[in-house]
């Protein structure tokens, strides 16, 4: 018997608007109406400004660790633009632009990184999950969310975001396997930004593309230029259609780059070649979109000045709201633990003590409750 090939595959990579301003008119035709391109561009400018301000807040001690989004705005924004309100967006922590586009208040994100749990409250009806700190865990939740919508006969789709590093975690593989084999409406959106903190993506995947990971699970897979809003929207439209009509998952590998440090706690100069960073500066998704709009006479210097002024005003109001919020009550962290607080936990909350409990019940109800109900430092 001769050896025969039982499977052959190819991976398509999509670029519509490249860093030199070339636009593929065929693929890009009718993809995003001009007025929307303008809106999306303006949104990216505002998000970029928030990112810069957040960085400065951390540096001046007004905020804790913050992960810069700089350079990756087109990915989550392109996805959020295609999703409908009934769909879910299940993110990690570098997707501000998409979350804001869907309607998450900007101060929520600042509050989160300011160590304030009130930043995690999600407005009613907004189908997004909170920032996921443990890497690679949230894709399973998206798979379950997609499953729940299919179960109820709804046409919603769950789109989950994760990094190149996250594809090394076991949970990613379990999520992909479930979604593919149970026919679930899930979009696996991988932001391959080249790095997982200091570890290059070559250590996460030695195949030529991360997209191959989707193929391994039998799902449709595509690679896109992640700094190209058009390419992202193109891939998302196909993926959403596939999920909505056929309940089939898609894996999208968006090739992008983390222009900043991993977080403000990191110093990427320790492990990255400055020439590599420099080369990606030119591929900035905002730069190329601006050039595109200018070329189509949809944008000019005056409009740029106006959006920058608007961004400044918007973000300084956002920062003010985040910083002016009252200090949380010192028992704030007890109150969302259970619907009905266990009795023992109630005592801890009301006394702010774990010692001398159960020894002198009279005292617990009585006078000295020094720590309770004051406002935190």
């Amino acid at each position, binding site marked *: 018997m001769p050896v025969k090939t039982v499977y052959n595959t190819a991976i398509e990579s999509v670029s519509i608007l490249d860093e030199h301003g070339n636009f593929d008119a065929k693929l890009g035709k009718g993809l995003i109406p001009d007025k929307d391109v303008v809106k999306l561009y303006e949104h990216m400018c505002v998000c970029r400004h928030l990112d810069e301000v957040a960085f400065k807040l951390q540096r001046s001690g007004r905020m*804790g660790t913050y992960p810069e989004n700089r350079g990756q705005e087109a990915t989550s924004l392109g996805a959020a633009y295609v999703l409908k309100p009934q769909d879910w967006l299940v993110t990690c922590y570098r997707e501000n632009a998409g979350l804001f586009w869907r309607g998450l208040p900007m101060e929520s994100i600042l509050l989160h990184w300011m160590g304030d749990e009130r930043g995690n409250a999600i407005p009613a009806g907004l189908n997004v999950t909170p920032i996921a700190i443990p890497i690679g865990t949230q894709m399973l939740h998206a798979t379950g969310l997609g499953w729940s919508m299919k179960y109820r006969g709804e046409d919603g789709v769950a789109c989950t975001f994760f990094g190149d590093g996250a594809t090394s975690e076991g949970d990613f593989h379990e999520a992909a396997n479930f979604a593919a084999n149970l026919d679930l409406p899930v979009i696996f959106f991988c932001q391959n930004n080249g790095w997982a*903190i*200091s570890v290059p993506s070559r250590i996460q995947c030695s195949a030529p593309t991360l997209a191959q990971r989707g193929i391994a699970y039998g799902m449709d897979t595509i690679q896109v230029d992640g700094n190209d809003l058009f390419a992202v929207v193109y891939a998302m439209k196909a993926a959403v259609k596939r999920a909505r009509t056929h309940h089939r998952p898609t894996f999208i590998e968006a090739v992008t780059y983390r222009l900043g440090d991993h977080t403000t706690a990191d110093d990427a100069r320790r492990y990255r070649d400055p020439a590599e960073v420099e080369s990606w500066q030119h591929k900035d998704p905002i730069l190329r979109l601006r050039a595109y709009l200018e070329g189509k006479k949809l944008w000019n210097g005056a409009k740029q000045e106006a959006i920058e002024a608007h961004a400044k005003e918007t973000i300084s109001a956002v920062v003010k709201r985040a910083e002016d919020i009252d200090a949380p009550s010192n028992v704030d*962290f007890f109150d969302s633990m259970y619907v009905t607080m266990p009795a023992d936990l109630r005592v801890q909350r009301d006394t702010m003590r774990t*010692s001398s409990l159960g020894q002198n019940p009279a005292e617990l109800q009585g006078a000295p409750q020094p720590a309770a109900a004051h406002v935190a430092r």
Partner: protein
Amino acid sequence: MANLTLVQAINLALIQEMEKDDRVLILGEDVGRNGGVFRVTEGLHQRFGDARVVDTPLAESGIIGTAIGLAMGGLRPVPEIQFEGFLGPAYDQITTHAARFRTRTRGTLTCPLTIRVPVGGGIHAPELHSDSPESIYAHTPGLKVVMPSSPYDAKGLLISAIRDPDPVIFFEPKRIYRAFREEVPEDEYTVPIGEARVVTEGEEMTMISWGASVIQCMNAIEASGRSIELVDLRTIYPLDIETIARSVRKTGRAVIVHEAPKTCGLGAEIATLIMEHCFLQLEAPVQRVTGFDTVMPYYKLELEYLPDETRIGRAIEETAAY
């Protein structure tokens, strides 16, 4: 002697053990070129090369699972888990395999590995970067669990852990990684696993703690002006009940302080051991000053959660007055 921080002391222990024993290797996320996110492995990659200081894929189960294989293969791996909050994916490998191989194979296959993990709160970090899960691992038979509170102990205990024939989880309290320096001998030495340390001697009561809380206890004791014997466990399992019992028999009173939540925390175990060993000498109920039974709050409220001088001081006064 050199005046070192806890980070530097651990770094020195790693260098010395790697120079002495070429079976020792380090693996984990960002431990190589970047020197670890806390710089604990700083300089080791340059010194020992790619084969011995290995940046792995981002997968904690993979890190520990392969470390188990490396250990069974005759090496002495020292895997790092970047933060205690990310032990989750490795939990399965640690508890269902590392802890059990020796007994499962009647001693023929063993897992001499040392899992280094930064632990605890107090550094204004994001979610899952501030937890204290030590009792979970102390509750897993087959593991040894260590948590030093000083640079001297950190170096000596880490060397013991690496040389230990069984799996050790070496928790490093990140709040005191750089909080103070201490004289640490340049020469190699060991601090035995399983021995607590009497930090300050005293007569009125015994205070038992470990990790970064030891520093809070020292401050509270000083503020109280009382004669209190402070016992730093240093090793969480096997627990040095002898040192604790000797002290409590003398003082008759005990306060236990830990960052982890109260329910099923190690304080419960220690209080029971004290009751078993010192019942007749006890003059007051054993007190626990601990984290609350909530999820560790984000950093705006972390100081409300963590036992501090005020909360410990109150327990001291109530225990003394009882």
